[in-house]
C-alpha cells in the first residue's frame, strides 16, 4: 500500500513535469532567446531526475540527467539552441514519457536510451571542444559511478546534494532508529518520509525506499535529504512521530559528501562543478539560486489541491442521490404533519442539499486543458513532418467538462486536428500562390453555452471542395447521383462524416484512410453530442463539436405509460403535443401523421415496450412526443406527460445488456427506478 502511495504520487508528478517540459520546450522553440523558459525547463527536468532516482528508476534518471546537462549549458548561455538540439530533446521527452507509461502499466521503466544519450552527449562534446573539457569526461565516467552500487551515494545524488548546497539549501544525513517493539515498521518509515518530503526532497535512502516499504530492514535506516528547514526542527519533527527511538540529523558539507560518495564518481563529480562555478557570472548564480527557491514555494501551492479516485466521487454521488430521495420523503411528511418548525427545518435541509448537489457535480468537472495540452506538440510534429507552417491558437482551455466526457473526447479531437493539419492547411507554396500568409492558423476554441460545451477546430486552409466531395461520395456508393442533386451545401459538407469516405487523393499515414471522420462522428454522438462542419472553399473550414456538460446528468422528459414511468432525453425531443386518432393516416399499413407540412411515422411506445396496462388505441386523443434522429422524425405516443427533470444516469449493470430501446435507468424522487428510453432505437 505504501509503495502504491509513493508510486501513484510519482506517476502523477512525473506526468505533470513531462507536460510542463513539453509545453516549455515548445515555447522555447518559438522563442529561443528567452532564458527564463530554459530556467523552468531546467527546474522540471531537475525535479524529475531527483524523483526518479529516489524511486529507483535509473534509466529515467540517467536520461533526464543527460538532458539536464545540455539544458544547463543553454541556461548558462554556453550553448545556442538549434533545431538538432530541439529534436533531440523532444526525442528524449518521448522516451521519458514511454518509460513513465511503462511504469504506469506496472513495468520497471527500463528502456534502451543509448541512442538518445549518445546524441545528447555529442551535443555536449561539440560544445566542449571550445571550452571546458572536464565536464565531458565526467559524462563518460558517469556509468562507472552508477554501477558501483556499493557506495553510499552515486554521482547524480551527490551532484544534487552539491548543487543544493550552492543554492543555499541544507543537505542532511538523517539516521532514524525505530523502537524495539515497533510493529508497523514500514508505516513509521513512510511517516518519516512524509515529513522529509514535506520539508524538502529525499535524495537517497539506505536501505532503498522499496525495501523500507516491504519492511526489509532491521530497525534503523539512513536518508540523504535536502531540506528547507534547520536541522534542529527537522529532528524535532521526525522525533514527534511515535515509536521512533532516536533521530540523528547531521548537516553535510562538500568534504563529508565527497567521503560518502563512491571513489571513482567522486573524482568525476568534484571536478566539473568547480570550473563551472568559476565561469558562472554572479547573475547566473543568482538565477540558479532563484530556481532552487521557486520549487519550494511551488510545493506549497500544490498542497491546495488533492487527487481523488473517480470511483469515490461516484460513490459520493450515489449516496447523495439517496439523500435526495429521503429529502423528498421528508418534505412529503412535513407537508402532511403541518408543524411549522418541522417544515422550516426540512426547507433548510432542502436548501443545503441543493447547494451540496452543485458542489458534488462540480467536483467532477475538469478543465479541457488536460486534453488540449498535448495538442501543441502534436501539431508541431505533424506540421514538421509535412513541411507545413502552422500556428495552433488555443482559447478557452479553462472551460470545464465532466471527467467522463474529458476522458472520451481526446481521440475525436486528435482526429479533427490531424485532419486539419493534413487536409485543411495547404502547403506553403500553395498558400503563397493563393495570396495567403505563409503560416496557416488552426484555432482550437472551447466555450460554454447553456447546458453544452462547444469545441471548435477552425483553420484558414483550402476549405471543402464540394464537387470533389460529391464525386467521391457517388463513387464510393455513399449516395446515388439522384440523391446528390437534392443536397444543399451543408448536407454536402456533412458527407465527409459518412463511413468509408475519404477525399485525400493518396493515403497518408497522418489521416486519409477514410476511417477518421465517421469515427469522430460516431464517438461524439455516443457521448450525446453533435458535430457540424462549416466550410468556405478556398478560405477555410470550421468543425464544431457540441458536447453535454456531463454524461452523468441529463435533462429528460418524464412520461407515464399506465403504471410505469419512463424518461426520454430532452436532446432528441423536438416538440410535444396532442394528436387525434382520427387524424392519423394509414400508409401501407403504417400509421403516419402530418407534422409541420411533412408526414412522419407514428410509434406506439406501449407496443415497443410491451406495456402491461396501457393501450393508446382505447383513447380518442393521444399525447405525443416528436423525436428526432438526425434528419428523421417520428411521433411517439405516450399516456401522460409528467414533466421535465434533471436525471442522474445509471447503468443497468453487466447482467442486463443490449436491451432494445432502453439506454439506462435513473432513480426518481420517490426512490423508484425509471428506465431511460433510447429514442434512436425508435426511429428506423
Amino acid at each position, binding site marked *: 500500500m505504501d509503495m502504491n502511495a509513493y508510486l501513484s504520487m510519482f506517476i502523477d508528478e512525473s506526468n505533470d513535469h513531462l507536460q510542463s517540459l513539453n509545453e516549455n520546450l515548445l515555447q522555447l522553440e518559438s522563442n529561443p532567446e528567452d532564458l527564463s523558459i530554459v530556467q523552468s525547463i531546467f527546474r522540471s527536468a531537475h525535479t524529475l531526475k531527483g524523483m526518479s532516482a529516489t524511486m529507483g528508476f535509473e534509466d529515467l534518471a540517467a536520461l533526464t540527467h543527460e538532458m539536464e546537462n545540455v539544458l544547463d549549458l543553454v541556461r548558462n548561455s554556453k550553448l545556442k539552441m538549434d533545431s538538432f538540439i530541439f529534436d533531440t530533446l523532444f526525442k528524449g521527452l518521448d522516451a521519458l514519457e514511454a518509460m513513465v507509461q511503462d511504469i504506469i502499466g506496472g513495468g520497471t521503466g527500463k528502456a534502451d536510451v543509448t541512442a538518445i544519450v549518445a546524441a545528447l552527449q555529442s551535443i555536449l562534446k561539440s560544445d566542449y571542444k571550445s571550452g571546458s573539457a572536464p565536464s565531458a569526461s565526467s559524462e563518460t565516467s558517469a556509468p562507472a559511478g552508477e554501477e558501483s552500487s556499493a557506495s553510499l551515494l552515486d554521482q547524480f545524488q551527490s551532484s544534487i546534494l552539491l548543487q543544493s548546497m550552492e543554492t543555499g539549501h541544507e543537505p542532511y544525513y538523517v539516521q532514524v532508529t525505530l523502537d524495539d517493539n515497533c510493529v508497523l515498521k514500514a508505516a513509521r518509515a513512510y511517516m518519516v518520509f512524509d515529513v522529509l518530503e514535506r520539508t524538502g526532497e529525499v535524495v537517497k535512502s539506505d536501505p532503498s525506499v522499496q525495501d523500507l516499504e516491504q519492511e526489509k530492514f532491521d530497525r534503523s535506516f539512513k536518508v540523504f535529504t535536502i531540506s528547507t528547514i534547520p536541522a534542529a526542527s527537522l529532528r524535532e519533527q521526525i522525533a514527534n512521530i511515535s515509536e521512533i527511538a532516536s533521530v540523528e540529523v547531521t548537516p553535510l558539507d562538500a568534504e563529508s559528501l565527497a567521503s560518502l560518495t563512491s571513489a571513482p564518481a567522486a573524482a568525476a563529480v568534484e571536478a566539473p562543478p568547480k570550473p563551472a562555478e568559476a565561469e558562472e557570472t554572479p547573475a547566473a548564480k543568482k538565477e540558479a539560486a532563484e530556481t532552487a527557491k521557486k520549487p519550494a514555494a511551488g510545493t506549497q501551492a500544490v498542497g491546495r489541491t488533492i487527487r481523488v479516485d473517480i470511483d469515490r466521487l461516484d460513490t459520493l454521488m450515489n449516496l447523495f442521490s*439517496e439523500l435526495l430521495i429521503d429529502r423528498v420523503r421528508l418534505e412529503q411528511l412535513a407537508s402532511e404533519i403541518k408543524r411549522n418548525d418541522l417544515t422550516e427545518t426540512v426547507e433548510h435541509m432542502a436548501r443545503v442539499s441543493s447547494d451540496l448537489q452543485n458542489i458534488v457535480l462540480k467536483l467532477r468537472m475538469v478543465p479541457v486543458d488536460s486534453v488540449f495540452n498535448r495538442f501543441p506538440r502534436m501539431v508541431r510534429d505533424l506540421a514538421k513532418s509535412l513541411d507545413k507552417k502552422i500556428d495552433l491558437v488555443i482559447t478557452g482551455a479553462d472551460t470545464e467538462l465532466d471527467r467522463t466526457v474529458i476522458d472520451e473526447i481526446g481521440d475525436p479531437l486528435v482526429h479533427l486536428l490531424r485532419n486539419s493539419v493534413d487536409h485543411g492547411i495547404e502547403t506553403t507554396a500553395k498558400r503563397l500562390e493563393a495570396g495567403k500568409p505563409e503560416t496557416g492558423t488552426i484555432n482550437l476554441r472551447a466555450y460554454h453555452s447553456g447546458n453544452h460545451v462547444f469545441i471548435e477546430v477552425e483553420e484558414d486552409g483550402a476549405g471543402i471542395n464540394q464537387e470533389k466531395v460529391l464525386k467521391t461520395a457517388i463513387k464510393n456508393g455513399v449516395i446515388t447521383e439522384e440523391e446528390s442533386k437534392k443536397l444543399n451545401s451543408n448536407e454536402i459538407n456533412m458527407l465527409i462524416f459518412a463511413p468509408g469516405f475519404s477525399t485525400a487523393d493518396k493515403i497518408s499515414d497522418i489521416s486519409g484512410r477514410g476511417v477518421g471522420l465517421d469515427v469522430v462522428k460516431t464517438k461524439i454522438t455516443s457521448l450525446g453530442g453533435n458535430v457540424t462542419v462549416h466550410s468556405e472553399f478556398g478560405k477555410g473550414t470550421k468543425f464544431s463539436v457540441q458536447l453535454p456538460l456531463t454524461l452523468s446528468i441529463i435533462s429528460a422528459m418524464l412520461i407515464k405509460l399506465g403504471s410505469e414511468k419512463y424518461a426520454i432525453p430532452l436532446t432528441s425531443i423536438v416538440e410535444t403535443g396532442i394528436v387525434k386518432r382520427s387524424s392519423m393516416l394509414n400508409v401501407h399499413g403504417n400509421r403516419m401523421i402530418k407534422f409541420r407540412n411533412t408526414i412522419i411515422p407514428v410509434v406506439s411506445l406501449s407496443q415497443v415496450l410491451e406495456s402491461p396496462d396501457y393501450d393508446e388505441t382505447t383513447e380518442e386523443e393521444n399525447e405525443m412526443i416528436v423525436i428526432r434522429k438526425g434528419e428523421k422524425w417520428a411521433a411517439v405516443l405516450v399516456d401522460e406527460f409528467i414533466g421535465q427533470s434533471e436525471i442522474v444516469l*445509471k447503468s443497468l449493470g*453487466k447482467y442486463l445488456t443490449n436491451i432494445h430501446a432502453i439506454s439506462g435507468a435513473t432513480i426518481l424522487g420517490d426512490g423508484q427506478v425509471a428506465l431511460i428510453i433510447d429514442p434512436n432505437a425508435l426511429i428506423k
Partner: protein
Amino acid sequence: MGEELKVIVFALGNEEYGIEVDRVRTIERLSPITRVPKTAAFIKGVINLRGVVVPVIDLRGRFNLEETAPTEHSRIIVVAVGEVEVGFIVDSANDVIDIDTDDIDTPPEIVGGIKAKYLRGIAKLGEGRLLIMLNLAEVLNRNEIVQIEQLEV
C-alpha cells in the same frame, strides 16, 4: 476434514438452498421492482439498491419452477459474481450455517426439477436435512439467457 464454508440458507418451495456468504452482498426485503421490457420472463426488472440499479431475477422462474406470489417472507438476495451483480427473489432467507466441503456430494442429474449444471453439489446437514448448493456462475450465465430470449421472442 475439508475446508469450512459459511453458507446463507434460503428456501424455494420445500427445498433448502445455499450460497457461499462471500458471494452475497446483502439481503433485502422486497422493494418495488421496475419492469424491463423485452427480457426473459424470469428477469423481473430492476430495483434501487441504495442508489445503484440492480437487476432482479426470480429464481423459481430461472429454474423453471412454478412462480408464486411474493409473501412477507420473500427476500431479495443480492449476489456478486465477478462484475455482475444480481438480486435473487427467494421465498425466505433465514439462516447462516457452517458446512464442511467434504460433506458436499456431486448432485444427481436432476434435483427437484433443477438441472445439475446449476448446482455445485448437495450438502448433508444431518437429521436428513439436505442443502442444495448453487453454482452461481452457471445460474448467471449470460449465453443461456440470450438463448432463452431468442426462444421467447
